[in-house]
């Protein structure tokens, strides 16, 4: 209640934000509570499950263990920022098409890890996909459909599918 607050400036999904939050807030709390971006999930609040993963200056980052001041002046992309105005990100479409999201709770974090991977590596091997997603727990799928979806999205992007959104 009486916790000290601070003003944090950061760019989220292309919007420059200036937001007052308690000094102990994490990036996840800032996104969910102060900015209303509830796409990023809290599964453990300890950095164990990966559901809170966002892309911070191009790197997949666990927002639940990132103090918000670490994001000061930096660029954040969340699951809400992956799509363009015209179309979902090829990953988002591929996840839908391939049944890669069952309950969907880990999906936002997995999409951010996968999007960062595809930024680095356009045509990843299955081993590279597994390694990129090793910090994201999924309890529904057994991961198989997720790999299929990431591969399908990579293929679509190689074939020219556009990546809009704040990360593109």
């Amino acid at each position, binding site marked *: *209640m009486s*916790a000290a607050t601070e003003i944090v400036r950061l760019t989220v999904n292309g919007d420059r934000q200036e937001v007052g939050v308690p000094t102990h807030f994490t990036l996840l709390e800032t996104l*969910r509570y102060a900015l*209303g*971006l*509830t*796409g*990023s*999930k*809290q*599964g*453990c*609040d*300890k950095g*164990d*499950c990966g*559901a809170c993963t966002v892309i911070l200056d191009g790197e997949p980052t666990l927002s639940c263990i990132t103090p918000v001041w670490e994001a000061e002046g930096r660029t954040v992309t*969340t*699951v*809400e920022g*992956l*799509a363009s105005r015209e179309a*979902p990100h090829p*990953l*988002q*479409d591929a*996840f*839908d*098409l*391939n*049944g*890669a*999201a*069952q*309950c*969907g*709770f*880990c*999906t*936002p974090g997995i*999409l951010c890890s996968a999007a960062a991977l595809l930024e680095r590596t356009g045509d990843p091997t299955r081993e590279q*996909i*597994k*390694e990129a*997603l*090793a*910090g*994201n*727990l*999924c*309890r*529904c*799928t*057994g*991961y*198989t*459909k*997720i*790999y299929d979806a990431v591969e399908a999205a990579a293929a679509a992007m190689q074939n020219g599918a556009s990546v809009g959104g704040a990360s593109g």
Partner: protein
Amino acid sequence: MSNNGRKIKSDWNLIGTPMRKVEGLDKSTGRALYTDDLVFPGMLHGKILRSPHPHARIVSIDTSSAEALDGVHGVVTGQDMPTTYGIIPWTPDEYPLCVDRVRYVGDGVAAVAAVDEDTALRALELIEVEYEELPAFFDPFEALEADGSTPYVHEPKKADWNGNVTKKVHLEFGEVDELMDGSDAVVEGEYFFEGSTHTAIEPHCAIGLWQAGGGFQRQDGESSGKLTVWSATQVPHYLHRELARVLEVDQAHVRVLQPLVGGAFGGKSEPFDLEFCVAKLSMITGRPVKILYTREEVFYAHRGRHPFHMKYRTGATAAGKLTSVDAEIVLDGGAYASFGLVTTYYAGQLLCAPYEMPAYRFDSTRVYTNKPACGPKRGHGSVQPRFAFEVQIDKLSERLDLDPIEFRRLNFIGSNTRTINELRVTSNGFMECLESVERESAWKDRFRKLPFGCGLGVAGSTYITGTNYPIYPNDMPQSGVQMQVDRSGRVAVFSGASEIGQGCDSMVAYIAAEELGVPLDYVRVLRGDTDFTPVDLGAYSSRVTFMVGNAAIDAARKLRGMVQEAVAEEWDVKPGEVLLAGGLALWAPDTERQMHVKEAFNLAEAKFGTLGSTGSYNTPKDVHGEYRGATIGASPAYSFTAHVAEVEVDVETGIVDVKKIWVAHDCGRALNPVLVEGQMEGSAYMGFGEALMEEQVFKDAEHGRAGLHDAPSLLDYRIPTSLDTPELQSLIVESIDPEGPYGAKEAGEGPLHPSIPAIANAIYDAVGVRMDRLPFSPPNVWRALEAAREADTLRKPILNPGAGAPTSTPELVPGD
């Protein structure tokens, strides 16, 4: 809109094809809303104070300092809700918050609502609870031997019972002892199935909103109000009933909403303390109250898989026919009954297929201990005995020098038959499942022929497609669906089914689109709200596709009949000649004659008035015997599964590398093969995790606080990551069930069962070591390897491996 020249099949147009999920894009764009994503004006945040003791009397609770803290709006204790509840109506043994006694480390004793979580947490620290510690029971066998000199976990259920017993079941079918004595081979084994938990990635969360007044009255005429609870539950209907009962609000004034649920697996299938607390705190404060469990609290709430201590004797003839099965099982239940009455029956009742058993006896006892309560986890009560039994079969096959797949074929129970415990079995695709995994794994070329350290194992199983009876006895339908069509061509489906990620909202949409001929994106599914959806009992026991699916077909066909009749009248043809498919109404004899479904719906609305229908499903009642307990395990249909697992065992470290699991499952018919495969892969994955990694362990007095959960986090309680998970290959088998929707049965739980025994049997093939205790973790496997080395029972290396062996031969063990 055209059908793009697509041939109208006599069969189904959508059913059986890969389709998107109705909420798929919402989930991949972050738009999907889960309970914790909801925020209401003036919302308070609640926290629950939990017991640090495994067993203690509550002497006193002083909440005055907490109530005085700035920002705190309400505090409740057990005295504010002194009514017991429980998911099974015969065993209500929990209070929303403990009234006089705490029974495990983590039991809730008080709850606060404050302006934010930090304030609520500070308030918890100000609550003073005086406890009188009591001796606690952690071991089920010690609990069974208790003489009452110290308090039992609960009061005895019967006068001559130990109060630590939840339930005892003893059932016997056929001449067990005679047939066992006459067997050519008898295998005896003792097994331990380690408990495990669900770890849905979404923690439990609930929001309560009490609206006082407004003319709402209780049945006794007292002024009341309206209670709304949003919850990540998989049983909104049962939650609705228990909230009304415990909080003394008329059921008609209780509304339960279920936002999308972020995984459940049985872990959200009964009411939990937070749902009562948010409701009561809102009634006290007049403001919406949210409680979100921490991950640690999820481990305390638990209701996961029971640890089972099992003894089996299994007999067979020299020709490999099972003769007799005798089982003795002790279930470690934890502090409360939960679904335990059912679990105690399931421990024995669900073993009687897919193999013919001439005689069977089981003795099953569930025991209370001072640990988090166990309950239903995916494959409720039947995964543990299945592990033991399928390993028993492997041992018998070896004893009789029979191929274990062949042994299973020899004992196949068949279709359209009854099990020894009188359960009706209809469709049965188990033989096709065996054939699929045998073929795909190149079993015949590789079993018993791989180099030392590498092995294959097989296992089979069956599972219910829904329980035949609801949890509270009644004659009403198990599932209902309501549908309406509008003038734009859209179909609205009102479904009470619980979407927990398995795809049931999509399933009803597929059925509506199939039956009414509209494109899938013309269907809207309105869901998760007890105020306006018909009752469905919940997402448990793999009941939803079968029961809700049949109800949806019932509703849709009533509407279809009206539309066909109206179009037939317009065209002056017979109603049966009107097809609805691909967004069109078509005349079957000449499909060039067609109209958009929107026009067809408009004709029907003009003829019949506003178009809506309801559909119901109830189970057949002649599917089980008459003995006490005969209804438990009864189901309108059974699914069947077979797995082959391939492993590589590092004999130096005990590390088991599961290379691949072939998963063949008879789901009746795959309404959407993508979703069925997802269930099969997810099940096999979860079984793999239980087999190799997961342990529900508690500290003892020497290593910390006795009864404290040893690993209540997703780091320390190890579930498989992408790097741990083996390759999984789904092999769908369709037996087309005569009563299932389009022939469908379940796919969500059955395919978990064989993973564990298939891996155990593969380890034996690899190194000659039997793993009769879970998990097959490196220390456990290493110890078993050491023991085998000493006893010289380690498998002898095959110097000329057969075909299909890996190219890199693992090193042989020194001295071997």
